[in-house]
């Protein structure tokens, strides 16, 4: 009898582990679908879903769009912020990031090794990746610098400048090719990195005790001073961005640094395991959305 129970238990456990081995993204996919469901419900009719907007005034509700669908979240807060959207469309008539795309193309063609490392420039939707050899997450910024170092060159700054220009070119080429965000979780180690990234995203930190989710999941669509908060869904699709505040182009790492400062904590280093794993989680949440960068933001 005991032998039978042990045999059955082992068979179940082995079956489960084999099934698990084939689908390392099971949990991530559950998380992503729940996030999409949450965002679509929240913005189906904000005025009717007041529980999601506890501090919103009647005026605030007037400026929020109804019936926002999955694909529109690639635009960030401009998916639902009517006023922001009209300003965004106006500025985009003469996009200030076009020079950066040209500069990026030149860097792609003239920088030693870059073309060999990235033969297809339409790769913006595939990063961050889990590098099985290194056993860690590699963001596009880190991959570019690894390539430079492998070719005997000095790495670039991970937040702006040449690296942002090259990423603008990659994003532009990906958008032109109609590429979508396609982050993979190929192993158990990658799934663990995803889980750590998720924990980093949802943990409250800093003297203000805010998590990223406070503003960009539960807070998405709510107003902080004049700004309507953007959603986690679609956050990574449009980087690098030309921010009016920066008066220039910046990478996702630069934006995360700024967010961490606002939370009241000493920001993690761009390229660190902590930040890369969080970006891995964030990018996975945008899986299936079109790559929409480079873009502009306030």
């Amino acid at each position, binding site marked *: 009898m005991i032998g039978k129970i042990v045999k059955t238990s082992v068979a179940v456990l082995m079956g489960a582990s084999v099934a698990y081995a084939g689908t390392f993204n099971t949990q991530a996919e559950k998380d992503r679908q729940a996030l999409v469901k949450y965002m679509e419900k929240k913005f189906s009719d904000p005025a009717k879903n007041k529980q999601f907007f506890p501090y919103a005034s009647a005026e605030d509700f007037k400026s929020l769009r109804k019936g926002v669908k999955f694909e529109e979240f690639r635009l960030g807060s401009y998916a639902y912020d009517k006023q922001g959207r009209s300003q965004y469309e106006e500025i985009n008539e003469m996009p200030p990031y076009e020079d950066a795309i040209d500069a990026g193309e030149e860097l792609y063609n003239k920088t030693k090794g870059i073309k060999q490392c990235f033969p297809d420039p339409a790769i913006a939707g595939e990063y961050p990746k889990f590098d099985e050899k290194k056993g860690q997450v590699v963001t596009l910024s880190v991959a570019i610098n690894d390539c430079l170092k492998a070719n005997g060159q000095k790495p670039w700054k991970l937040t702006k400048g040449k690296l942002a220009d090259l990423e603008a070119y990659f994003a532009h080429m990906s958008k032109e090719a109609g590429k979508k965000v396609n982050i993979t979780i190929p192993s158990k180690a990658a799934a663990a990195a995803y889980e750590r990234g998720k924990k980093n995203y*949802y943990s409250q930190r800093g003297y203000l005790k805010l998590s990223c989710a406070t503003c960009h999941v539960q807070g998405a669509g709510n107003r902080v001073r004049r700004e309507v908060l953007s959603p986690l869904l679609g956050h990574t699709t449009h980087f690098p961005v030309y921010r009016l505040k920066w008066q220039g182009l910046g990478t996702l790492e630069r934006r995360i640094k700024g967010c961490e400062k606002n939370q009241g904590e000493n920001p993690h280093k761009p390229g660190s395991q902590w930040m890369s794993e969080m970006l891995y989680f964030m990018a996975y949440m945008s899986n299936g959305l079109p790559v929409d960068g480079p873009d502009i933001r306030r």
Partner: protein
Amino acid sequence: MKTINRLVTILGLGAALSIAAAAEEVTPMVEEAAKLDVKKVCDVKANGLEKVLAVAEKYNPEAIKLGVEFKRLGIRNSVYIKGLKEAIKAKKPEVTLHYKSKGKEKKKTFKTDYAAWRACTFAVRSLQQVKEAQKDYHLAIPGDGYKF
């Protein structure tokens, strides 16, 4: 039977290791800080400046190690602690903090008592948050602890 026993042991060990990996952030010092009453241990009037500074000096290095050090208006907690130490040594009623923000050298002055309270609470709270996050972060995840 031996093979089955081995398999069960391996699977059990694997599960235990996964749980250990998930809890790796909670270090003994985090556990220790989690038990503290911040209002009591950082009370300058009741404990004196030196004792409050000692609490901040004890816990902030762990916060740096875990990547959770607080920073307010461009000033890291370690800058508060450094300035505070100098002010206590020189018996000054005010602490002048020198720090860099956006590449520029800046300075700010605080009452010594206030700087001590802040350095201490920042050091202890940063570690307490690590412990709190361990169970609380699920509550914000749609489809997990966050119901909508």
